[in-house]
């Protein structure tokens, strides 16, 4: 069932121009290597879904791969703005960017609804917020027992989910530990799921009977990509490169400097080189 592919082959096979892709990982386990491969393969007109676009989407947006962004918080955590995201929204550079903006609570619930095979999620959300007027995908339902009006958002069902995880076994079962974010939900909600991992092992070494494990039959392709989450991190493997997140503020502020950096560090680097970088 699960294929074991190179990063290049996995992206080539399952990410196509115009598709809806969710690269997830809540601060932890962000699949940077996979995002960079999407840039290298110059995918176009993507609809990208992610709670916190983070640097990886700033890069994809700045490189012109993205037509639409579905998100709930678009900053550089602890640092400030995502300048490429801002430039796209404020000045349509390098191309206009359509936004569908939610709150974290709603997006998390929408991923869970996608995993649960429901058409929508309900929550006590958006009370009094102007977001409701600017997003047609924020509606409401009435509780048939109390009459309370609850916010409703459509389930998220991406064409492709891409996440990074600590390890997979040779059958393709995947273990995720630490801040698990919406990793399980996005994989189960998506039509196809690509998982990059730090290592492929004989034994997952799951510490608990309740460890977060995605069975091989829920995963389309497993890619061995050590360091594939840098400058994000992999609990138990390497730490978050906070210095780089801070540095990105300067790198990304200027269009030329950004483009130069992407050329040097992404376009002219290969998936394999990057994986071990």
């Amino acid at each position: 069932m699960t294929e074991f592919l190179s990063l290049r082959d996995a992206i080539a096979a399952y990410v196509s121009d115009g598709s809806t892709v969710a690269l997830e990982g809540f601060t932890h386990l962000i699949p940077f290597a996979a995002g960079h491969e999407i840039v290298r393969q110059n995918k176009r007109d993507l609809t990208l879904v992610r709670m916190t676009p983070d640097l990886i989407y700033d890069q994809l947006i700045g490189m012109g791969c993205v037509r639409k962004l579905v998100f709930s918080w678009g900053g550089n955590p602890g640092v400030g703005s995502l300048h490429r995201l801002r430039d796209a929204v404020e000045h349509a550079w390098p191309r206009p960017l359509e936004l569908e903006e939610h709150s974290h609570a709603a997006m998390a619930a929408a991923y869970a609804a996608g995993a649960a095979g429901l058409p929508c999620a309900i929550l006590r959300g958006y009370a009094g917020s102007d977001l409701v007027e600017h997003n047609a995908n924020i509606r409401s339902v009435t509780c048939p027992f109390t009459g309370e009006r609850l916010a409703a958002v459509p389930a998220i069902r991406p064409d492709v989910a891409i996440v990074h995880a600590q390890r997979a076994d040779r059958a393709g079962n995947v273990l995720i530990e630490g801040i698990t974010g919406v990793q399980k939900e996005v994989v189960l909600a998506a039509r196809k799921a690509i998982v990059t991992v730090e290592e492929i092992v004989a034994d997952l070494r799951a510490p608990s009977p309740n460890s977060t494990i995605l069975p091989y039959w829920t995963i389309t392709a497993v890619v061995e990509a050590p360091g594939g989450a840098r400058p994000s991190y992999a609990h138990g493997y390497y730490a978050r490169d906070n210095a780089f997140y801070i540095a990105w503020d300067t790198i990304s502020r200027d269009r030329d400097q950004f483009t130069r950096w992407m050329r040097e560090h992404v376009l002219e680097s290969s998936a394999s080189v990057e994986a071990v970088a």
Partner: protein
Amino acid sequence: MSAAYSSSEMMAIAAARLLRNDDVCFVGIGAPSLACNLARLTHAPDITLIYESGTVGARPDVLPLSIGDPELCETARTTVSVPEMFAYWLQGGRISVGFLGGAQLDRFANINSSVIGPYDKPKVRLPGGGGAPEIAALCRQTYVVMGQTKRSFVERVDFVTSFGFGEGDDHRQRLGINTAGPTLVITDLCVMRPDPTTKELVVSALHPGVTREQVAENTGWPVRFADPLEETPSPTAEELSTLRDLQRRTTEAHAARVAPSPASADPSTALGMTPPAVIPSERSESRDLHPGSAA
């Protein structure tokens, strides 16, 4: 008497003092994280800190730069998924104090962290709400911590990301929101509390050395003052040393792998605080540290 201190240090310390040992806090990055951990390291050792990344009961030794730094999970009692965090813990009504901040706040403590200018053609696209819209409605009460300027404390916010008291009075109740909302606004100049009936923010205490005029000059509406008007006690030597040790540890940790970036020398980032998400040129002007949104 204690040593000299900055107004941002006063803000963090004033916020920390308001937290109790049995509080369960939904902590945002920046000033809230600083205040909560300062409280934990001083008078509230058992305070529960919850970060939206899913970490419950985190006890970080250095301030996280992001809401999901390794330090948080490694020191947490347990870490749950993000859907569970928002469903069972925030929406479930488990949080006693949530923190909010943003680029703009109005006299009814409505907060804008989305856009400056019109939503569809923004002058400045801010990061957005993240967890804030639901933190504002679902925590038993919220504390707003943000630097005070005429630009940030405005007559009317351009966009209501997080609902405070709306147009005042019983607006929350009319929307079916049954939590207390923003019961405290702590700035680098003063502390504000909502008027019991109108819910307009009223200055209840001035930080040491701050004048009514300074507060008025840095508020975009004709701000009212409580009578009697209290003065915030100065930081104690212990508060200051604990705060500065924490900041030093944090600066060292985040610069661990120094990158070629002026930002890395910027205290606002070194402190793990989100600078005001306004256009860069305005950054240097800002008198002081600004907390980030709760996102």
